[in-house]
Each structure stands twice: as structure tokens, then as C-alpha cells.
């Protein structure tokens, strides 16, 4: 369950952050306000509270209930896309204005400039920050036990209570560490791939 929440959040939040980031920079005021408000709300309240909100408040107010797992995934996706959007936006804004000017002089459209010139350059810059978020995400998945999703922490607590032996916590810690270790390696690989052009002069 831990892995499932993590992977689903990753798959949906990574791309979803991008439109939010672009929207926060939009020249159209309604889009900009909407995206900034979204980021403000989801970064400005605790993830735990958001979980409670989606799990307990929605059914009370709107009369429909979801299973714990989809609720957890939706909450995580919204929360993480808000954080990622800000990382993306920072990366986009860090690109030199000259790159936009050069692209515009060559007749490239806004879209071509963003996806062909600007975004590929931001990848290597934002990757360490994104990897950070992903590691936080691994550990944040432990929060979902509050709405009854069976994840690693819950399972280890069950084991500790059952055997009256806290070794299970140690096992849990090792599993988290292994998980983040793999994640770090993957991030390194991607970072190398996207910064190969930064080779120094031979």
C-alpha cells in the first residue's frame, strides 16, 4: 500500500504540477489567480488535515464517500502537485531572458519555446528539489494510516503490539531507507542524463 500510494502520487502529481506552474505565470488573471490560490491552499494546510477533510468532511457535506485508498491518492496528488508546481515555476523563472529572446527571434512560438527550449533546461536545475519532494513523499505515506489504509507504519505497529517487541520498527526504518536509497540512485541517473551538455571545455 505504501508503494501504491507513492507510485500513484508520483505518476499523477509530477505532470499535474506543470500546468499549475505555467498557470501561475499566465498572463490571464483568472488562470493565474486560480493556480496561485490552489497552491496557497494545498501548501498552506497540513497534509494530515487534508486527508481528514477528504475522508470525513466530503461524505458529510456532499453525501458521497470514497474508499480510503483513492481518497489518500487524490489528497496526495493535489498536495504534491502544489509543491511541485512551485519548484517548476522557480526553475522556469531561473532561465535567462536571453533564451526567450533568441527563441522569439528565430520565429518560435510561445509553445515551442516553452517545451523545446525552456523546460528541457529546467529539468537538471529542479531535479535535486524534486528528488527531495519524492523522499518526503515516501515518508509522508505513513500518514495514510489515519484513514485506515494499511501501510508500512501501521503494519509494523501491529507487529510490535502483537509480539511486544519493537524490532518491527527497525525493520520499517530499513525498508524506508532502502526505498529512498533506490530513489536517490534514480534521481542521480536522470540528473546526469539532463546535464550532459554541461561538460566543460576539453
Amino acid at each position, binding site marked *: 500500500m505504501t508503494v501504491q500510494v507513492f507510485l500513484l502520487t508520483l505518476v499523477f502529481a509530477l505532470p499535474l504540477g506543470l500546468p499549475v506552474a505555467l498557470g501561475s505565470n499566465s498572463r490571464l488573471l483568472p488562470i493565474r489567480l486560480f493556480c496561485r490560490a490552489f497552491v496557497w491552499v494545498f501548501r498552506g494546510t497540513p497534509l494530515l488535515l487534508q486527508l481528514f477533510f477528504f475522508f470525513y468532511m466530503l461524505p458529510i457535506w456532499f453525501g458521497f464517500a470514497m474508499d480510503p485508498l483513492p481518497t489518500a491518492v487524490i489528497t496526495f496528488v493535489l498536495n504534491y502537485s502544489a509543491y511541485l508546481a512551485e519548484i517548476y515555476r522557480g526553475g522556469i523563472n531561473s532561465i*535567462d531572458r536571453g533564451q526567450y529572446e*533568441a527563441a522569439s527571434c*528565430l*520565429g518560435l512560438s510561445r509553445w*515551442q519555446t516553452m517545451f*523545446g527550449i525552456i523546460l528541457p533546461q529546467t529539468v537538471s536545475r529542479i531535479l535535486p528539489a524534486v528528488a527531495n519532494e519524492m523522499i518526503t513523499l515516501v515518508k509522508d505515506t505513513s500518514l495514510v494510516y489515519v484513514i485506515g489504509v494499511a501501510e508500512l507504519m501501521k503494519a509494523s505497529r501491529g507487529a510490535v503490539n502483537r509480539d511486544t517487541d519493537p524490532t518491527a520498527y527497525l525493520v520499517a526504518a530499513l525498508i524506508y531507507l532502502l526505498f529512498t536509497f533506490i530513489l536517490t540512485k534514480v534521481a542521480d541517473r536522470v540528473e546526469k542524463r539532463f546535464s550532459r551538455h554541461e*561538460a*566543460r571545455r*576539453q
Partner: protein
Amino acid sequence: MAAILEMQNIVKEFGRLRALDKVSLHVEQGETVAIIGPSGSGKSTLLRSVNRLEKITSGEIRINGELMVSSPSGKAEYVSERQVRRLCSSTGMIFQHFHLFPHMTCLGNITYAPMKVKKQSQAQAEETAHRLLELVGLADKADNWPSQLSGGQQQRVAIARGLAMEPELMLFDEPTSALDPEITGEVLAVMKTLAARRMTMLVVTHEMGFAREVADRVIFMADGRIIEQGTPEQIFENPQTERLQNFLRSTLSAQKNQ
């Protein structure tokens, strides 16, 4: 001869500062025009107005006879975004700091826009790119990253990138100002080749030697106005205004001391 660029009464204001004060400029096909003047004289702003990197406050600009911006009510009104982009794409620009795309090889830098904007095939774009790299003397650098090149080499790749879009007018914004003095020559040599091939060029420069040797016409700007213009002989041998005389005295003695 046909005018490639016609600028009429261009005014550009940055807040209260008037960077361009009713400047008018015509550039004919095949002409090399050098713009000189002290920093802050508005010469870069004038150049950047040509392809709308700076939006003018009022005035009229035609490229190839086609209207890009006019001011019927006293305020600049541009034609549609599409039209402006089409007109601007008949100009190419070379920047002081090159602005190559760092995540693409030299070849990628040169082929990207022809493939995306002109819908050329990759083979076609690469063939042109190799020919242009040869022209600027960097045939062996096609697969290098920009970060592996010297400033002079990067600027030559930028020139090739600009030429790949087959512009009718090349704009150079202080193309050698960011380079070490000993390698400005290689960039100037490429520009001379282009001038000899009758490429139409508008060059903002501090290189008095280049202006004197290569330009058909030299324009001296100060305080957002064109103070004097004429052939290189008229400007350098027989300056009429005191502003130009002072400017020439100070720059030429400074360049001699280098």
C-alpha cells in the same frame, strides 16, 4: 534598390526616460549599416525595436514594405501577433551574449528553428546546417555542446543559427563586446564575408575598425537621436558635429591604448 527596413519617427519611452526620440532609419537591400555611439545612446534599443524585442511607444515600422506597427492615433499599434511573428522571422538577430541553447549541440541549435518553424525535414535542415558551419569555419564542431566552445566560436555558431532561417536582414547587437580582444577578429571576419555576399546587415558596434572598413553607411547616435550619418569616410575623416568629434577622439584613443 528596395528598402528592407523603414523606421519612421520611432519613439521609445521607459517610464519617464525617452530612449528613442523620433528616430527615422531606412536600410536598403544589400546594405551594411553600422550604428555607433556612446552607451545609453539608444542604439541597442533601436535595433531591438526592429524585431519587437522592445515595443515602441510610437512611430511606424515596415519590413520589406509590409507594415508591422503604425501610430494612427499617436500610440503604437502592432498588426496581429501572427503577422508580427512572420515579419520578424525575416530578420535574424545576433546577441552580445550569444544565447545559444545550452541543451542542444551546435547542430541542434542550428536545425531546431528551421525544422519547427519552416517545417524542414531533419535531413534538409542538417544539410543546411553543415554548409553554414563550414561558412563560419566550424565544420568540425557540429556535435559539440555550446559549453565546449570558446566565446568566439559560440558567436559564430549563433550567426550560423540566425542564417539558417534565411533572414533578409541580420541584426547584430554588439556581437563582439563580450569577447576577448584577440578573438573578436574571427567573428568580424565572418561578418565581413556576409557583407561581401551582400547580406543586409544592421550592426550596433564598438568596433570602429569594422565600421570604417566594412560598413556602407555609418550612423552616429547620442541621447536617443541620430546625430550624424554618412559614408565611413564622411563620419571618420570629416565629422561635422562636435558630439561626434568628441566621441571619435575618446574611443579611438581608448582603442589605441588597448
